[in-house]
């Protein structure tokens, strides 16, 4: 500092919040749903979750080291752990170990550090990894299983779980279709939605998570609780979740009313797949979503509409990850067009017309 040497300038008070505290709060919010689903899907899920999170942390450390950046300060902010956690939650629970490791390679060095590290990536790293895995290994990535709660009859022991995760010995008999996948397959066989829908798990089972699906997406009640917790702590605002779920619900309800045989209803769309997890935990990723509230609402609506379009018309039964990535690419443009109006100025930035004093 030059003359005067008075040190830093105002403000001399700051929020107690930090990047690390923010990430930790998100992890806390994810914990109940995660723990319940780890219990529900047993040892293979626990092993896969551990491998995925550890791989992401390792990939972060290696990437930082290669970039000659301080490793511990960045690793300890928890962003890589969160990416690994979300990636694990989006994998089939009994998927083999290498999906987690390969996913970490997609997520951390390629989707994050190639762009410049924390805060610089255009696309959500966890979703890049999930989509890359899904298009590369469609069979492995859609091998769903019905819940096999820990210690229940028929649940794999630790040794059996080890064999499933690390030995690739997936028992044939246990695979099950996800609700979205089932409805889509049935539709492709000419069976209308109205007939296939009654065969998917009922609403109560969907809400509790007693259904086939990705490792962390099935327990709607706990995910919703975590999301509301994040809102209460003001980590996220309502704009993206409400925009996304609202748009998904409206689109689905509207088309369901037009042709119930072709289109599943709004409630079905919201309760199945990764809709709720995506709305509260994935689409709300700070780095890859718009910064203004208006932009966030537009972004959320976009994710909701695209999710419905992909689920309904595209080849894949689930569309949340694709929709999030597509909207990620629009984030810079949304940011450009959603700047708030400045004080004393019109939307165009001109000073307000002078009002005559009354």
């Amino acid at each position, binding site marked *: 500092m030059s003359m005067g040497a008075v040190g830093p300038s105002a403000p*001399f*008070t*700051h929020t107690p919040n930090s990047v690390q505290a923010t990430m930790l709060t998100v992890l806390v919010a994810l914990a109940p749903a995660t723990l319940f689903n780890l219990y529900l899907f047993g040892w293979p899920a626990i092993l896969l979750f551990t491998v995925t999170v550890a791989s992401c942390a390792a990939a972060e450390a290696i990437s930082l080291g290669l970039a000659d950046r301080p490793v511990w300060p960045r690793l300890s902010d928890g962003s890589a752990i969160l990416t690994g956690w979300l990636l694990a939650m989006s994998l089939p629970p009994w998927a083999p170990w290498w999906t987690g490791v390969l996913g970490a390679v997609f997520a951390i060095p390629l989707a994050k550090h190639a762009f410049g590290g924390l805060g610089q990536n255009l696309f959500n790293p966890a979703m890049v990894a999930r989509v890359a895995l899904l298009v590369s290994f469609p069979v492995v990535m859609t091998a769903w299983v019905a819940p096999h709660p820990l210690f229940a009859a028929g649940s794999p022991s630790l040794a059996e779980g080890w064999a499933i995760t690390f030995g690739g010995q997936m028992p044939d008999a246990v695979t099950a279709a996800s609700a979205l996948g089932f409805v889509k397959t049935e539709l492709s066989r000419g069976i209308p939605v109205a007939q296939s829908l009654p065969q998917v798990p009922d609403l109560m089972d969907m809400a509790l998570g007693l259904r086939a699906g990705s490792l962390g997406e099935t327990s709607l009640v706990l995910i919703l609780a975590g999301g509301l917790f994040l809102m209460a702590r003001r980590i996220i605002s309502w704009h993206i979740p409400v925009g996304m779920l609202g748009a998904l619900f409206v689109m689905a309800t509207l088309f369901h009313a037009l042709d119930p045989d072709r289109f599943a209803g709004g409630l079905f769309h919201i309760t199945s797949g990764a809709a709720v997890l995506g709305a509260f935990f994935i689409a709300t990723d700070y780095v890859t979503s718009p*910064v203004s*509230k208006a932009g966030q609402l537009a972004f959320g609506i976009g994710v909701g509409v695209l999710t419905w379009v992909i689920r309904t018309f595209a080849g894949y039964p689930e569309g949340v990850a694709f929709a999030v990535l597509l909207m990620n690419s629009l984030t810079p443009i949304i940011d450009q067009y959603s*700047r708030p109006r*400045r004080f004393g100025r019109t939307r165009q930035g001109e000073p307000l017309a002078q009002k005559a004093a009354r």
Partner: protein
Amino acid sequence: MIRHLFPVRGGVHPAYHKDPTSEKAVVPLPMPGMLFVPLQQHVGQAAEVLVSIDERVRKGQMIARCGGAISAPQHAPTSGRIRDISEVTAPHASGLAQTTIVLEPDGADEWADLPEPIEDPFAADPQVIRERVAWAGVVGMGGAVFPAAVKLDLGTRYKIDTLVINGAECEPYVTCDDRTMREHPQEVIDGARIIARALGATRIVVGVERNKPQAIEALTRAASPHPDVEVVGVPAQYPMGYAHELILATTGRETPAGKRTAEVGVVAYNCSTAKAVDQAVRLGRPVITRVVTVSGGAIREPKNVECPIGARVGDLVAFCGGFRSHPAHLVNGGPMMGQPLPNLEVPVVKGTAGILALLGSETNARPEEPCIRCGSCVGACPVGLVPVEMAALIRRDDLKTAGRLGVGDCIGCGSCAWVCPSHIPLVQYFNYANGMLWNQEQQARKNARVKALAEAHALRVEKAAAAKRAAQSARKPAASPAASEETGRKAAATEEARP
């Protein structure tokens, strides 16, 4: 009396830290051994010295007069002898010195002959009130330090219908306005009514943040006989004390960018300024003291001190029991917008609302981390800027685009920097950009002026040469008369084209 408030955007809720001083009555500072009265305690031109070294002055005597159209005089805070008129470090972050009158009090505290009180200010000519306020050296006591009398003139140029009295005091720690409103509600309301009279305003709105219920109650009681005065509790939401924000919240009128609030028929005065105006008009007393909040974790006994202008910061700190431990930051003003103090030797001036000695643990300062684009700064900005985007542009030195996005509209309130989880010093980015943009603009203006002068010079040279040629050709009869006519016309044309 529930009054409709108008919504304002953004803002943050920093920890108030007002408790250490808010319940303590204002105490006078014992007269220090030496007072240092700077000539520049206000926006505008510095005051001009009226006294000489070794001259004896009495309390309230004008020792420096108004230095221009926008200026304010200085008065002796007590009786004593002028010991020096020299350069003393100013209470400013630059640590630069400025001309200061050094007064050694003689302990007699003997008043000078003061002007007569204005008997009935509500029957007096507004011009008389303006002149009295100008004489008394009243400036914006909230920290803006704009000469109060100059603002009173706005009433002659604009149709002002509403006076807003700013009692928001949104800065953490600082409670001097709170104490003033609680201890002198009559003077504040009376001063406000005098200002309104001078401005020609028919309505007075006193805006106080709701975290000061006693002040609201005291003012409401003081205002009850006057139907034209309304006391309004406004949300405790920093920066509510920013005049444009408070005016929007209380009147719903949004001042156009780059314009005065008078454009929308409103003028705002700080509540302590209203009290100072009251003293000047009712008692004929100039501004020679002010209430200063001395607080912060490093101060042993935080207090509100009524302090003569020119007392050194060190005198106040000593009066408050000294330091409990070594302060990490010494701040002039509040923690959100205050200036770092160069040292304890600088004097208290009319705009000094707070002296804070903060511990490192109080500030939650952390090393800067990468921006995670959380958008908190966008939600916090009361002006509607996008700090995250501007900071990214400034970081890669694209100041032009940052300027287009409105960095010039930044009021420096610090809300974005307060709320940033990555602890990025956003205000510094914007101050830097605005400083550079200002320099560039000055440079461009200078270049344009140099260019104009150079062109004019070239024209003059050409004209002189043409005139010389014309004279030569006139002397030589062989030269063609048409050619000389041509040159003459050209010279006439260039003469016209001269700027």
